[in-house]
């Protein structure tokens, strides 16, 4: 069988399953970005807060999850999570091992890492908001929540877009490590296809090419989004 049949969409071809796996990679990366957005916002708030213990916790979080190898974090969530689930199962009189679903484990693990990076992105974006605007909002009587919603959030989101693009690219690459939990994303699927056909070189090249497509496309999309967002800044920056 020629290599073009192997990666094609015929009966013996792996094309369909590889495309499906590409979607799975996108889905798990998107889920991890969402997990990381929530964590990142909380940690950024902690790092910016006036309370010393909160700042300390925030710093500890970002130091640990940016300093530990990604693979180690995935082991922590996967094995640790499965142990916790098994312990809960024991309480409910279920004997035996319960595994954490690999999609959940992967999204949470990469999300924990992405949260640490996103926290730094949001913190930087918050600091980029002009102090004068916050003072102005305060002086016309806006409360904390209203100020956050009307003044801070819109600008923080805009300022953090380039940083979020970097985090997305990092997470996309980190998502390959979720393959160790058995989730059938692109890395794992390329591995299985390579092993069952003994065409290791072919399938790793194809898998790598699909990752290249993903990173290139996301780069384009983020650049486009940044240009769109920059339109609202043009006036303020141009006519200072």
């Amino acid at each position, binding site marked *: 069988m020629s290599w073009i049949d192997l990666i094609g969409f015929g009966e013996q071809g792996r094309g369909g399953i590889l495309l499906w796996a590409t979607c799975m990679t996108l889905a798990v990366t998107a889920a991890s970005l969402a997990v990381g957005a929530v964590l990142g916002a909380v940690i950024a708030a902690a790092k910016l807060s006036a309370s010393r213990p909160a700042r300390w916790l925030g710093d500890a979080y970002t130091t640990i999850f940016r300093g*530990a190898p990604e693979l*180690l974090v995935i082991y*922590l969530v996967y094995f*640790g999570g499965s*142990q916790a689930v098994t312990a809960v199962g024991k309480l409910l009189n279920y004997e035996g091992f319960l595994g954490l679903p690999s999609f959940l484990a992967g999204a949470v693990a990469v999300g924990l890492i992405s949260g640490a990076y996103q926290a730094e992105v949001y913190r930087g974006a918050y600091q980029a908001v002009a102090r004068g605007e916050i003072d102005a909002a305060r002086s016309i009587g806006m409360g904390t929540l209203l100020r956050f919603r009307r003044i801070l959030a819109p600008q923080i989101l805009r300022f953090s877009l380039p940083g979020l693009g970097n985090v997305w690219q990092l997470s996309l690459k980190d998502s*390959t490590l979720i393959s160790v939990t058995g989730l059938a994303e692109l890395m794992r699927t390329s591995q299985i296809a*390579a092993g069952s056909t003994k065409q*290791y*070189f072919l399938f*790793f090249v194809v898998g790598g090419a699909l990752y290249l497509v993903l990173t290139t496309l996301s780069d384009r999309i983020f650049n486009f989004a940044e240009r769109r967002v920059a339109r609202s800044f043009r006036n303020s920056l141009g006519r200072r």
Partner: protein
Amino acid sequence: MGFDVAFLWSTFVKLGSAVPMTLGLFAASVSLGALFALGITYCRVSGGLLLSAFGRAYIFVFRGSPLLIQMFLIYYGLGQFPAVRHSLFWPVLRDPFSCAVLALAFCTAGYQAEIMRGGLQAVPAREIEAGRAAGMSGLLLFRRIIAPIAIRQALPAYSTEIILMVKSTALASLVTVWEVTGTAQRLISQTYRTMEVFLVATLIYLLINFIIVRLMSLVEYRLSPHLRERPVTASNGGRQGEVHG
């Protein structure tokens, strides 16, 4: 969850014995990667159309695809071909350690080349012109004018990159090299004490990173005497700091 100091200590000792492997992977791949990166930077900066296209393509491929798939491609993919198995390179490509080093080096070379190019671009044209006017050319110009400025400019980004490389060595455990993360995984599946092993392993990585950061900032300090205040001597009365604000 109480703290079992004896267990933490024995974990620390076991993981500590894998540190030389992690450091070996790190040192070999960063230096080999720097060598590759020099070549690629040369291609991009001073090469013709073909060389520069090669440099661009290399950087695109190795920065755009995940390290794990590059590593598997080298370790499992190349061994598939009989021609490779019977070639001169087989002793290197058969060995998981050297495959991991190669993959790490190829990958970091893409990133390092971009950092080096950034450093070179930051060298002001005036300085090069001044060097030329003083009669320097070729290697002498590079050694005395371009390299010192470029290295200084590139150093912060370079530190970030090599810190990321420390973390990347963890992937070598997936091609059966027993460095710190691989050993930690084995300990976790033997003892089921995930949290403790994770914390000890993370502590080890943080220590390694801390030492590297300190070393790099030492290098940065040594390379930028011109940014510091002049040492106070009797003749200038120590007013240098006030002048520069």
